């Protein structure tokens, strides 16, 4: 019964979206983190989604859900701020802010939560159909 496969698909989407939500949370939490050098400054992290392709015997390749292929760090330069009083400041008195853009992150968060809700909707629809199929002929 391939309605069960929909559970897998929707489940994979939900876990991918929650990975996206957690990177967003991590980015927002570190939005104001400062560091003593550009190399150690916090860089915003984004998950990369990828379709999971499955080939069932003798049929066209059908995709089955989505997975997080990896997490990439933003390459944007962290902002340099002159703040000699900060204990983390380097010899020139600069500290390095994280390169997180809170607006981007919030938009990402809303998008992820909408997608998550869509998947939950799909899941509950197919669950309902499955239960109705079970009660066939009664």
């Amino acid at each position, binding site marked *: 019964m391939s*309605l069960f496969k*929909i559970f897998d698909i929707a489940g994979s*989407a939900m876990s991918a979206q929650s990975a996206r939500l957690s990177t967003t949370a991590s980015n927002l939490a570190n939005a104001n983190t400062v560091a003593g050098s550009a190399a150690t400054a916090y860089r915003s992290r984004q998950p990369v989604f990828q379709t999971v392709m499955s080939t069932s015997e003798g049929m066209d390749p059908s995709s*089955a859900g*989505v997975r997080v292929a990896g997490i990439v760090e933003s390459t944007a330069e962290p902002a340099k701020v002159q703040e000699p009083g900060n204990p983390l400041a380097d010899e020139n008195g600069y500290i390095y802010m994280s390169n997180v853009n809170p607006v981007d992150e919030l938009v990402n968060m809303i998008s992820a939560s*909408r997608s998550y809700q869509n998947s939950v909707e799909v899941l509950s*629809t197919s669950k309902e*159909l499955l239960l*109705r199929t079970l009660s066939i002929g*009664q």
Partner: protein
Amino acid sequence: MALDIYKQFDLHTRALGIANQRLELLADNVANADTPQYKARDIDFRTAMQSAGSLDGDLPMATTRTGHLQAGGAGPNTTTPLYRVPDQPSLDGNTVDSQKENAAIAETSVRYQASLTFISSNIRGLRDAITGGR
């Protein structure tokens, strides 16, 4: 008379299979709504039903010897999905339209439930015929 009932079963079972396949594709589309370069896929219910209905054969069985029986294949119970033409292009090359997918899922789910209802009432009819309505 009884044969008609079996034919009805056949039709609606096929419809269930196609609705099932379509739901799976749509679930896939929703799952990949944020995947770059993902192309949304769907099947056309009408053509799927027609191709499933032609019992005499998209895929006839191969006969290699004289004794072999000629058998018309019903074909696999799946239809080749087609790619959807997007209404508006997106920067990441993704062609999933969440609204469309949700509408299609609602529609397919209603079709599925309609087929279930038909099958149920067929079973009830058969049972009535067996028990004489008692």
